[in-house]
């Protein structure tokens, strides 16, 4: 590894750590500042003031927000993310299980999206006016524009009305498709545009002039070159994947981090929200970091001084 690349990796790693801590802390502060707390339920059930005060004390809600944040950040060094008010269990354990589920779902969705989206992008980029190219473009644009919640509901409706796919909790097909399809469409659009640009590049024109067969020209030379800009936005792709996972996991009952975070938000489970935000941002940071490495491996200019 060159010095430039090492510096690049170290810089990215440090930024990733900072990003994760800032996101987790911000989540904690925002939830704490938001109206309502976990004792709301007790209040609406007519619990007396003493019971509510005892619950608030047990949950540390009677402490100043600054000291709560300081203790939480200090705990991070020991991987102690606090205790969930709802489950009465360490947040680290609760989050770890769900993080794995989300990572599995996201990984699978990314794989499906890449397998479907990138080749289709090559097809539409090289033959945009063909029937296949037009159809794929229309479907892609529709999928990109469709909010994850609507797309997921449509898939669920399709699965329920046809009986082709199970929508039982824990079944991975529907959630994977719900996450993968918009992502595949996004990749297809990006790859398609890059292909069009790659064809105008001098080296591709030269290769064509040398008589390189068209198929080889498209799938080896141009597609590879077109991949660079796509990898350039890999960070956005990863972020899209995880932000979409909240809606998808909730709608499809996938036991992942997004769903846990929504539950935690609804029950105002302060440390669990912060823990989920920390874990989610870790996944995003990790994804971005890997994407940067991948980009650096295909583009020698990455990490070099401009």
């Amino acid at each position, binding site marked *: 590894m060159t010095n430039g690349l090492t510096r690049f990796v170290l810089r990215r790693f440090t930024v990733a750590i900072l990003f994760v801590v800032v996101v987790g802390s911000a989540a904690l502060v925002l939830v704490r500042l938001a109206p309502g707390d976990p004792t709301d339920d007790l*209040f609406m059930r007519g*619990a007396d003031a003493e019971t509510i005060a005892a619950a608030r004390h047990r949950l540390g809600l009677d402490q100043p927000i600054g000291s709560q944040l300081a203790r939480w950040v200090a705990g991070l060094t020991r991987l102690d993310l606090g205790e*969930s008010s709802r489950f009465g269990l360490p947040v680290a354990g609760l989050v770890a299980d769900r993080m794995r589920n989300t990572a599995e779902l996201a990984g699978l969705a990314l794989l499906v999206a890449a397998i479907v989206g990138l080749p289709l992008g090559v097809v539409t980029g090289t033959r945009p006016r063909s029937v296949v190219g037009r159809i794929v473009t229309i479907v892609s644009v529709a999928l990109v524009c469709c909010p994850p919640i609507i797309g997921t509901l449509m898939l669920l409706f399709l699965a329920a009305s046809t009986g082709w796919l199970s929508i039982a909790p824990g079944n991975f097909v529907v959630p994977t498709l719900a996450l993968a399809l918009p992502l595949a469409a996004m990749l297809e659009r990006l790859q398609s545009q890059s292909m069009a640009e790659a064809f105008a590049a001098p080296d591709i024109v030269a290769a064509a002039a040398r008589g390189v067969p068209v198929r080889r020209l498209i799938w080896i030379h141009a597609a590879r070159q077109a991949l660079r800009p796509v990898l350039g936005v890999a960070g956005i792709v990863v972020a899209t994947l995880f932000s979409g996972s909240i809606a998808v996991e*909730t709608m499809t*009952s996938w036991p992942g981090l997004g769903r846990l975070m929504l539950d935690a938000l609804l029950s105002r489970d302060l440390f669990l929200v912060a823990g989920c935000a920390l874990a989610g941002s870790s996944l995003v940071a990790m994804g971005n970091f890997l994407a940067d490495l991948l980009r650096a491996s295909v583009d020698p200019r990455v990490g070099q001084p401009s």
Partner: protein
Amino acid sequence: MRIPRSLVLLLAVAALVASIGYFWRNRVDSGQNAKGGPRSGGKVVVTYRSEPGSFNRYVAPRVAEDLIARLIHATLVRVDRTTGQVEPRLAREWSTSPDGLTWVFTLEKGITFSDGVPFTAADVVFSFRALYDPAVKSALGSSLLIGGEQMKVRALDAHTVSIVLPKSYAPGISLLDALPILPEHKLRAALDAGAFADAWGVTTAVSEMAGLGPFVIKEYRPGQRLAFGRNPRFWKRDESGRVLPYLDELELQFTPEQNAEVLRLQAGEADLMTDRVRFEDLASLQDLAKQGRVTLHTAGVSIGPDMLWFNLDPAAKSAQGRAWLQHDELRHAISRAVSRTTIVNTVFLGEAVEIAGPITPGHGEWFLRDLPLPAFDPADAVRRLASIGLKDRNGDGLLDDQRGKTASFSILTPKGNSIRERSVDIIQEQVRKIGLKVDVVALDGGAVRTALGEGNYDAIYYAVEADSLDPGRHLDFWLSSRPMHFWHPSQPTPSTTWEARIDQLMTQQSTTVDHAERLRLFAEVQRLFAEHEPVVYFAAPKVIVATSARVGGVKAALFAPNVLWNAEKLFIQASADSRR
């Protein structure tokens, strides 16, 4: 040998008759066993929106934990949720002292917990000890105080306990329907060590838990499912002496999104949903009911209708410079300016009744049938508003107060409940027609509760789930000193004469044991309430529950858990064998 043709004909007719008889019998016995009762065996899948925070009902106050406790534990007595009658459970029979304070319960003998350890009076005493232990700080415990004081429990022998109430309490032992009896042998060490609040969390091994309920927990997969199996030691028998529960398995599958719940029921992947049918889903479920795939059960009229109340605390900021906001005539005017019929027909698609108070026909004998419903009369509403100084003084179509300021107020409502949001939109629109400007502010539920707790609001449109038909169990709402006296909570002394009178009547009503007198007192409470209308009610929807057609034995109740309160008697219809 030659068989006579007539004999062949006779045998053929006999075979035909026997076949028809056989198929006819099978048809009418669908879902019944050979003896004519419900069949045993099978599995019911329930979609459930929220996950438990703990398996310890004493420290976890949510509906999910309550449901689980009802499946894996038993109580001394149980309230039949369709009739309101108290029925024996762990207590076979009971007697009471003439003053109604001391109750002696004779417990069932020969019962064991699911782990085989015998159940005795010591478990009942232990359960009360855990309930009231100050170190546990049980939310359930605070709801099982009578007038702020604890019940006293004593074991008279291994199968007899006495419970002394601190003061006379009309709902009596129905209160015990909420108290699951826990195994002392499993939890005593935790209680003695001050660790009871942490016992039986969701990571506890299922083998560590034991109960007296119809089911035992088999497996918990966070975020996915909670599987229950039949408790082989459950002691209850049905009317014909057959073992309960009928089902072998029951599974809660966590489905946090309500649309997904409906889709799963429609797809035949689930038998039951968390709670009642939403009105937006009613039409599609009625179609499925016609196809025989779903059964709709109407439990009756809701006992927890949506309500509109104003902040009547005289010290509230909202009242400063807007004294009219706390005037009775404002609420009477709104009550008459809004067409209840419109709400019933457009929001609830006709599946609701018009109401004028918190007690609906669903409350049965407590409902005052002769209480007049405020007539839809916008002209009368305008007159009433004029009587408190609200008139259109500048011709802009909006009413102004005596200083010429436009009369406007805001209504907070929790967002995400489409029925409530549509109702409040209708209120806003119809109240605008009489010149009142209303801003509807849909907020997160927590924000609404915070505004309520801080008294920082003009009006709120919300509902609270009721868990009992008996008004004596809802003193938190009626008494001015209580926190759920929403319009002016926790008053040191009643701020109005009519609230003082309601306090007096409800205190009397909840302590007298003369039922006819209780009904009379509560009728007076309802008349006083209607006279001042501190809370305006418009409509109470019918409670409709949907199950897959394969599920039998459903007795739908008005409050949660609407079906699973009686899970031990659910069964799978014989005709549905091939479905799952």
